[in-house]
């Protein structure tokens, strides 16, 4: 990760990755609702239609299943579509196309066809958007062989991982935390990609490992800073892709620190925290000094009311407290 130089927001990094890949490869196109002149409700794509035209930045009807399916077919026959699903909550409408089609075409055809497509969508709560616009459903896709699942946590990662996703020959689902679009961070000018399946140590530490994904990485880093002040050295690890999963880096950190909290904004139950915790509990079994602690979203539909919504996801404070308890400090 670059220390100095140019800073971009998360949204700018995404846009730049798309623009560069679209310049590099004329087969890349963007398909989704309000992606062209509107540049999506989050304005992430602003300017792309001006550069690439309506032939390559394509507004669709409100038909998530339909245009996702169209993306699968287009990917099989020579294009490289980036399908935009405005809110991660709407992937519910695309599950058949993603899971029964995109994920399986290559395998079912014995390797004859491939599906080089990317689905970009969002996750994350605390935007006061209520239960149907706040979910983090990436665990579902992570469960499905044939898909790859990417969860960037910084502008740098967002750009590098999105480029890798677009160059991949398989269906890749790319989840962006919508609360992070304005986050700034260093992004070099030069072309770079980040390989899938390689976790990133966002911060080194000795006493406890915080494994965190997407939005929760920033929370973990905040908690780590607080912990440092209270004398606890926390390592923060970001798997960056839930599939492929870099088990080794997670397990090694767990072996080193012997205490682990796993953080993810999806529901804790039957979610990403379960897999990560299970992998670590198995791999570092003989080195853990305490059970792996899981912190996912509370197991409730996300409520609208701010004082209710705020308690559904982990915060720097709650991670700080959990980490101190795990280290026997309170």
């Amino acid at each position, binding site marked *: 990760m670059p220390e100095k130089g140019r800073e971009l927001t998360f949204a700018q990094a995404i846009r730049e990755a798309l623009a560069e890949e679209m310049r590099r490869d004329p087969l890349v196109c963007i398909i989704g609702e309000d992606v062209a002149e*509107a540049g999506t409700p989050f304005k992430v794509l602003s300017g792309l239609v001006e550069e690439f035209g309506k032939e390559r930045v394509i507004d*669709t009807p409100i038909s998530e299943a339909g245009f996702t399916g169209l993306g699968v077919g287009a990917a099989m026959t020579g294009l490289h579509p980036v399908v935009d699903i405005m809110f991660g*909550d*709407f992937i519910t409408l695309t599950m058949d196309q993603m899971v029964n089609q995109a994920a399986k075409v290559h395998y079912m055809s014995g390797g004859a066809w491939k599906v080089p497509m990317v689905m970009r969508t969002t996750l994350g709560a605390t935007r006061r958007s*209520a*239960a149907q616009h706040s979910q983090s459903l990436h665990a579902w896709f992570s469960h499905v062989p044939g898909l790859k699942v990417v969860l960037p946590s910084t502008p740098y990662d967002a750009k590098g991982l999105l480029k890798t996703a677009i160059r991949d020959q398989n269906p890749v689902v790319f989840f962006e935390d919508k609360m992070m679009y304005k986050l700034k961070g260093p992004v070099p000018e030069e072309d770079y990609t980040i390989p899938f399946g390689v976790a990133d140590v966002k911060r080194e530490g000795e006493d406890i490992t915080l494994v965190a994904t997407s939005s929760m990485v920033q929370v973990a880093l905040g908690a780590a800073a607080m912990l440092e002040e209270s004398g606890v050295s926390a390592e923060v690890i970001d798997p960056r892709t839930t599939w492929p999963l870099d088990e080794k880096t997670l397990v090694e950190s767990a072996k080193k620190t012997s205490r682990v909290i796993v953080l993810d904004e999806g529901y804790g139950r039957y979610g990403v925290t379960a897999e990560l915790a299970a992998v670590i509990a198995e791999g570092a079994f003989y080195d853990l000094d305490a059970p792996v602690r899981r912190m996912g979203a509370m197991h409730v539909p996300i*409520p609208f009311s701010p*004082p*209710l919504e705020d308690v559904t996801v982990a915060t720097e404070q709650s991670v700080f407290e959990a980490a101190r308890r795990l280290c026997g400090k309170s």
Partner: protein
Amino acid sequence: MTTVAQQPQAAASVGAEAWLRMYRQMISIRLFEEQVNDLYTRALMPGLAHLYIGEEAVAVGVCQALRPDDYITSTHRGHGHCLAKGASPDRMFAELLGKEAGYCRGKGGSMHIADPATGNLGANAIVAGSVGIATGAAFSAKRLGNGRVCVCFFGEGALGQGSLYEVMNLAQLWKLPVIYVCENNLYNEYTHFSETTAGDIMGRATAFGIPAESVDGQDVRAVYRAASQLIERARLGNGPAFLVCNTYRYHGHHVGDINREYYRSKEEEQRWKAEHDPLKLLSRWLAEQGLAAPADLERIHSEVKKEIEAAVNFAIAAPYPSPDEVEQDIYA
């Protein structure tokens, strides 16, 4: 498709009182929404809201043709439907502010207001998300023989979603008492509907053998008349219907959508406001018919204004739910 014998009594017997009631409801929605915008601008409302201003005649004309125990389902742009079906502004504002006194105890917010007492099965933040629920309510009504009907409100953007066609097929096969009311306000968010909608909208229903009508959605009388007939037809067991109401939203897609010129012109907006305002159209007609003097309408306006102000103040003063309510009502 309706025969004379099936003509509803209602449409014929409507008098001044009913038109004034509709006028009051439309004003009520207009002022409610203006307050919502104000709450947003003053940063008193969490999140966003989608204003119904300009489209009042649709909700009011349709809901006036319903019985109190009939059902509706609504959308992200749902405040008008809820109010027209009988919800009270105070608990609605409370919901919009996430307060305990809200219709959903603060858990739903602007896009999820629901109220069994007025037959409101709920607004829905998934485009076309409630078409199944509406059709299911009609299925129950038919099975239970309770004579109810269900109105399913949706924007023309929902025409993109396949589930609408799935349930229209079911509704027509089983002759369910459901009216699909398509509010065509010309835009799916920031995209003109002509870019997203192939063919003729009416065909989307007639393809399934469902009778379809199209009305000027700014004319509450036209909406009321058409809705009454289709609703009574459904109530009599003749099955579903489809009603396109041509309308326009005056404000942005949501309260934060301020600069709109990249997808529609100020002139277009002005034209609709000047020439097709549902309140102006009705008040002009009431005056022409001698059914209401300007003073009557002014009185209604100021009464409603007071009500709405009281309601918003109630909501602002109301307490939030306590944080431990977060784990209540997940399961019945």
